[in-house]
């Protein structure tokens, strides 16, 4: 990466580098929970998706949901990571009202997935972020403190839902990289169908580890962990605020305490949750209710064979096969829905035009209306029809924009719009010649000026001819015939 793109925080001739590592908690896409058959559907009435196992009734035992295991393996493969053939579920012991067992079943020493990597496309080129591990664990329930003035209410619907904790190496160096990293991770998991990445519903959250050091230093500084941040924007704000807090301490000659902090989004600052001394002793030990998890090579191979084309590979294909620029390809593959939409459109239409229309007009509309591409008001089928109308000269690009604006309203068929509104482009050379003759006749003075060397007037004639055609004249044809007439 070039010098000027480095993210550094400056203080009196000193430059500080920010070191960031993320522990992302991604909810596994699965109908049922990690160790019970309760539904995981979001938004149900409180405590309606709770089995005896989830509520930790006496004598209830966890039974592994094998689908969740496969999802974790799949994600591991997507992260180009090592799949551990033997892993162990441990109990992480602590008391809380929304933790019915009094322990969370997680993986501590032996996670299901080992080291991997994620490639970031940054403006100045690619950067590789190391993945330390991925492990499976249960989510806790939810404590609700603000409904009843005297009691805390507990909703166990989330209790036992499968999470993947994806731990990055401390390779991230800026809020921008964090943004791209989270989006890339989400993109990979959405391609794989292993996590829907919906941050509003809490399907993706992160603990953010931040430390700072003077530029050029090799040793890491003391880090603080900011717990449970649930949007990219807040992660970025938290990092900036926490890094500055740490730098202020160092500048004052003070030490940074290793501690767990919380980000207060209203005040835009982090505050201490517990110090290292107060850190919980979770008394991890292997859960005796579950045997060590053994994964066969056959299962890994089977899952591998089901892995769809992932963003990095798709990007390469788009560049190689469709001659897209890396920038265009990056945009189109960033989300599986977008790339699917693109591929659907280009099945029957021109790639270059499709790229421009999707990344241009369509994205503009989606942004304006705050829609996902899956909710696009214009279907891939109709967009490809529109592109074909441009390509075969039925309408001009300019008319196409008018047509597109109408298509948005209820995904109308562009063929019908063009027909009903009579927007078909005039591409009959005879008709064009006729209207050009008319323009030349009505502007004989300008013709004389043009012929005497005022070349700039050519645009004027094009405009007049277009106007005469009520905007429907084929621009290429107008150009061609005008040139012949005026220069001939």
């Amino acid at each position: 990466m070039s010098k000027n793109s480095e993210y550094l925080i400056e203080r009196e001739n000193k430059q500080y580098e920010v070191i960031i590592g993320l522990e992302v908690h991604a909810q596994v896409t699965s109908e049922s929970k990690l160790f019970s058959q309760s539904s995981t559907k979001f938004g149900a009435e409180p405590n309606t998706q709770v089995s005896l196992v989830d509520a930790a009734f006496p004598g209830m035992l966890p039974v592994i949901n094998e689908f969740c295991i496969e999802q974790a393996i799949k994600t591991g493969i997507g992260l180009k990571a090592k799949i551990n053939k033997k892993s162990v579920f441990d109990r992480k012991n602590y008391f809380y009202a929304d933790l019915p067992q009094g322990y969370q079943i997680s993986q501590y020493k032996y996670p299901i997935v080992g080291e991997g990597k994620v490639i970031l496309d940054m403006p100045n080129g690619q950067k590789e972020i190391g993945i330390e591990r991925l492990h499976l664990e249960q989510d806790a329930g939810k404590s609700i403190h603000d409904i009843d003035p005297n009691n805390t209410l507990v909703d166990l619907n989330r209790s036992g839902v499968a999470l993947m904790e994806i731990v990055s190496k401390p390779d991230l160096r800026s809020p921008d990289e964090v943004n791209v990293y989270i989006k890339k991770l989400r993109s990979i998991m959405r391609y794989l169908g292993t996590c829907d990445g919906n941050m509003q519903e809490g399907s993706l959250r992160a603990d953010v580890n931040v430390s700072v050091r003077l530029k050029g230093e090799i040793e890491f500084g003391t880090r603080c962990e900011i717990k449970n941040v649930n949007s990219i924007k807040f992660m970025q704000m938290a990092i900036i605020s926490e890094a500055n807090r740490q730098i202020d301490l160092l500048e004052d000659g003070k030490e940074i305490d290793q501690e767990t902090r919380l980000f207060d989004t209203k005040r835009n600052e982090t505050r201490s949750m517990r110090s290292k001394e107060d850190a919980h002793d979770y008394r991890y030990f292997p859960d005796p209710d579950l045997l060590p998890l053994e994964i066969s090579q056959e299962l890994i191979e089977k899952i591998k064979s089901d892995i769809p084309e992932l963003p990095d590979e798709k990007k390469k294909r788009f560049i190689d096969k469709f001659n897209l620029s890396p920038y265009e390809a990056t945009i189109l593959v960033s989300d599986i829905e977008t790339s699917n939409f693109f591929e659907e459109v280009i099945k029957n239409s021109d790639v270059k035009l499709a790229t421009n229309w999707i990344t241009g007009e369509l994205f503009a509309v989606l942004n304006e209306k705050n829609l996902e591409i899956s909710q696009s008001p214009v279907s891939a089928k109709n967009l490809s029809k529109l592109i074909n109308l441009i390509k075969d000269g039925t309408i001009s690009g300019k008319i196409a924009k008018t047509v597109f604006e109408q298509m948005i309203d209820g995904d109308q068929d562009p063929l019908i719009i063009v027909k009903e509104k009579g927007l078909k482009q005039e591409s009959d050379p005879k008709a064009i010649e006729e209207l050009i003759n008319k323009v030349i006749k009505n502007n004989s003075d300008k013709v004389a000026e043009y012929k005497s060397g005022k070349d700039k007037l050519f645009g004027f004639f094009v405009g007049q001819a277009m106007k005469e055609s009520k905007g429907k004249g084929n621009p290429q044809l107008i150009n061609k015939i005008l040139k012949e007439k005026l220069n001939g």
Partner: protein
Amino acid sequence: MSDITSQSLFELTSNIKEKKLSSEEITKAFIYRAEKSKKLNVYVTDNFERAIDQSKKFDSNPNLDLKLPGIPIAVKDLFCTNGVRTTAGSKILNNFVPTYESTVTQNLWSQGAILLGKLNCDEFAMGSSNETSFFGNVQNPVGENLVPGGSSGGSSAAVAANLTPVTIGTDTGGSIRQPASFTGTVGLKPTYGSCSRYGIVAFASSLDQAGPMTKNVRDCSMLLEVISSFDQKDSTSIDYKRNYYSKELSKDIKGKKIGIPKEYRVDNMPDEIEQLWKNGISYAKDCGAEIIDISLPHTNYALPTYYIVAPAEASSNLARYDGVKYGFRSTGQNLIEMYEKTRSEGFGDEVKRRIMIGTYVLSSGYYDAYYLKAQKVRQLIKKDFDDAFSKVDAILTPSTPSSAFKIGEKTNDPVSMYLNDIFTVPINLAGLPGISIPAGKDKNNYPLGLQVIGKPFDEQNILNISYALEDKINFKNDISDWWLSE
């Protein structure tokens, strides 16, 4: 026909199948005797009314193909029973009524058995004398103010006192075999993974096993056949072909190699235990078995290992009893205070002691020295048995280092109480099947038991050896019914 309640399970099922007795007659006979036996304090919760209804229902349309046709059975109060209070002997579950049934008890009802009630036990199965129960001591029918053993003390007393034809207990470190030994009854702990743990209040998950407690070996084989099953709801349940234990029961043990481990001759073991063991060996020889001296070198480490592993698991398993979801709840100004008061008031001393031991051995900084080391030693103990079983078919030892002791005698000395499990815990640590059969009496005329230990899943073999020994020993448990009220 002898008195109904003194009949074995085999006799009762035969009488029902031959229509000599009805389920109602049998059920009422046991209930009648229970009403006069309150002094023993075996029941925590009775189910008498419902049991009579169910027996009538059975008689109205009897299915005589079942293995336990209309047989009333009381079970240890550690098994969750749908709609019937389940306390685990603890105040913290004093008011807990499950909405579900444990797999093992479900297996009983599916074969026609009827629930008589829930039997007293040590709190969360932690104890060797039934003295830690919130519901009070159980009297051993063998003699007044004697403990019935533990933790399945209500169960052993109920079988010995003819208050249930058979019962089921659970055994984490000897909780079936030791009380069987103390009451002159038969108790079998199956191979870990044979009987489902689903719906059994957990003590130490890697050690807990349910098993039959009966008057004799044949009944034991009949009951094991019913309760042992593969269960997908328990991830540690093992799917293997189980024997028809009662059909395959045989006294022919000619040529069987029986190992005698030298390490089980512990210091200060009473002579009468030594003599009992010798007698057992000579009976085995009489039956045509070959006696082989073996060594289980890590035996000495079994008890300390057990008292790290079991409390560690228990400290975590009992975390769910926090007053939030079910069971006893005390009041507090905040969550932490509520937890502290609920658990301080809800648990008894022995349970608290083990939670503290378990919490300590799992703490960071101590984990490697205690828990991890204990797990390694556990592997060595297991390997001792693997090595021994390459030479022998079964192992014969005493069940306990002493006979039943007086109530209160050891309550202030936990370590001496723990020593009671010295011969039984290695078997749990190794996950093996073990059975205790009555084999003789001490100078006070209190019963003593011998233990037969088998290879994994070799329950049939230890049942057969026990069956043969039982015949030679010809044990008679002369119990005077001293506790009966008018």
